[in-house]
């Protein structure tokens, strides 16, 4: 059953997954290219660090697109295919989840191979260290968090999705109201800290993403 689900899901996802893999492989190499002519070790690190946001965005984007692709055809077919299968809904969702998570593996491998290529180039200044495994693991976790989050949203009812969007709208409106009433309370900033500071749901995306460090 898993093979069949994974196979059909792969057909919907492969373009995006392969594109993300190519970008993932290219990111470390592009960062090296930008840092290659740095005048000293410190500048090399700064230039490499500037690409950290790219890893976070790629992980978030890959997770989002693969999660939405996992449910896209079910939504279009009004879940007739899923209902025709002799399995529970929970098991079906689990198979979809596992298949989607599997397609993130090549993207993470792309980051690893790109990082290894950077190390093999011999262009890293003396005294600096590379952290390819840590970076790849972080990327994999970030992509999985993004995938799981959007997979959950995608699997929810329209009412749930509306509730999530409604909560965001209420938050923005509340901040607008506070500002209009001259109340010095940065609600968005507090929510942002709650979400992005550890152990917030998006905390894996925040902080430094360093392939090369001291």
């Amino acid at each position: 059953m898993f093979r069949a689900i994974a196979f059909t899901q792969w057909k919907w996802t492969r373009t995006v997954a392969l594109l993300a893999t190519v970008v993932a492989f290219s990111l470390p190499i592009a960062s090296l290219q930008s840092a290659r002519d740095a005048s000293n070790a410190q500048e090399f690190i700064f230039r490499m660090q500037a690409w950290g946001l790219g890893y976070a965005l790629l992980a978030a984007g890959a997770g989002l697109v693969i999660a939405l692709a996992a449910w896209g055809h079910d939504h279009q077919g009004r879940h007739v295919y899923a209902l025709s299968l002799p399995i529970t809904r929970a098991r079906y969702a689990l198979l979809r989840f596992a298949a989607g998570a599997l397609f993130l593996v090549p993207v993470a491998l792309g980051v690893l191979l790109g990082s290894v290529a950077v190390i093999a180039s011999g262009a890293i200044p003396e005294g600096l260290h590379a952290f390819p495994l840590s970076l790849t693991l972080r990327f994999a976790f970030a992509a999985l968090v993004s995938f799981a989050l959007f997979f959950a949203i995608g699997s929810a009812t329209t009412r749930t999705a509306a509730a999530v969007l409604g909560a965001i709208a209420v938050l923005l409106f509340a901040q607008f109201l506070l500002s209009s009433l001259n109340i010095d309370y940065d609600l968005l900033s507090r929510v942002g800290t709650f979400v992005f500071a550890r152990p917030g749901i998006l905390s894996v995306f925040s902080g430094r993403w360093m392939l090369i460090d001291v």
Partner: protein
Amino acid sequence: MYSAPAARTFLVVAALACPIGQSFAQTMRQYEQRVDTLAQAWRRATALRIEYNEAHGRDYRGFDTVTVGPMRVLTERSTDTLARRGAEFAVASLSPLYGRALDELRTHTLVVRTERATDVEDTTKAFVMVAEARQGAAKDPSRFVLRSGREKERFPVVVAAEKELVAAVLRDAALKLMLAAADTGLGRWLFSQLPVDTLPSTEWTRARIDLLSSQAVVARRCYAGSVHDCRLSLGITESADPAVDWFDAADRRKLVEGIRKNDYNGSDPVATEACYAGSDSACVSILRSATLPTPVSSNQRINIVRLAISLGGSGSMERLLLTPGTVDARIAAAACVPTDSVVQLWVARARSARTVSDDMSPGIAASSLGWILLCGVLALRSSRWR
């Protein structure tokens, strides 16, 4: 038919606009006069405040004296507790390392008094000034003394009236007094800073970056293991000609390029062109008249002393300050080992220090797994097509 209402509207607007324009101009003049009046009042108030502060700062007759070990502090009644606790902290924290060097404080008097701070946002807080109360006329032989407009108070620092802040400032004032009393050469070498603790492990990676990123070849040779070059980089061995001793030909050319980018008019164009053409002597002549960057940052000199503290233990700063002679001799006295051994250890630790990657940690993994599981379970429980 069409233009009549428009013309009427124009006339009404013009009629209304004329008096408004006049009254606006009148209002502007009035505003300008008011601003001038306010500015005069503000200048008078500022002059009075400065006069009050000056008078207040010079009159210590009503002040109490707090004596803690070698430290003597004049203080107002309202700041008595702050001054006493601060002095106790300063003496207790400095005594183990500085020992008899603290005796220098017996010849000085510090002052802790309330201060009006009008240039800070938070006017609800009380502020105090910590300074040295000078006994005689203003004569200051040291180049490292921070001067203020007040003749009788030097090293003035204004902080919020909180015991931790006052204690820290009193400790810093004690350090400044000890350094000002020490050899000028030592003060210059330490960039007017005295350490109060040993070297934290995070500093080693900075030392490595400093050495590797230096514009001077001596720093890079130091990283490679040359003790002589380390001594030159750190200024322990003084260089008679830094342009030659610190940099190689390639470094010198880069430096001249930098000088040309920042200040072309200040450098000799003929010599600059000759330097670009490959004449190292031209580069040297330009650099000899320029201000050169030190091979490593001033922090590394402090770090060498902090390493000497960790090697020498109790009384190490006392030995550093009270041992006569060169920086080399003082470091050796502080660490109780030859300076070369301290330098070798410093460079060895800088080389071997390795930072832990920020990319991954058990905390990141645990929180990520938790959220993945939670989202997964929510997805499984969804009632989308029930």
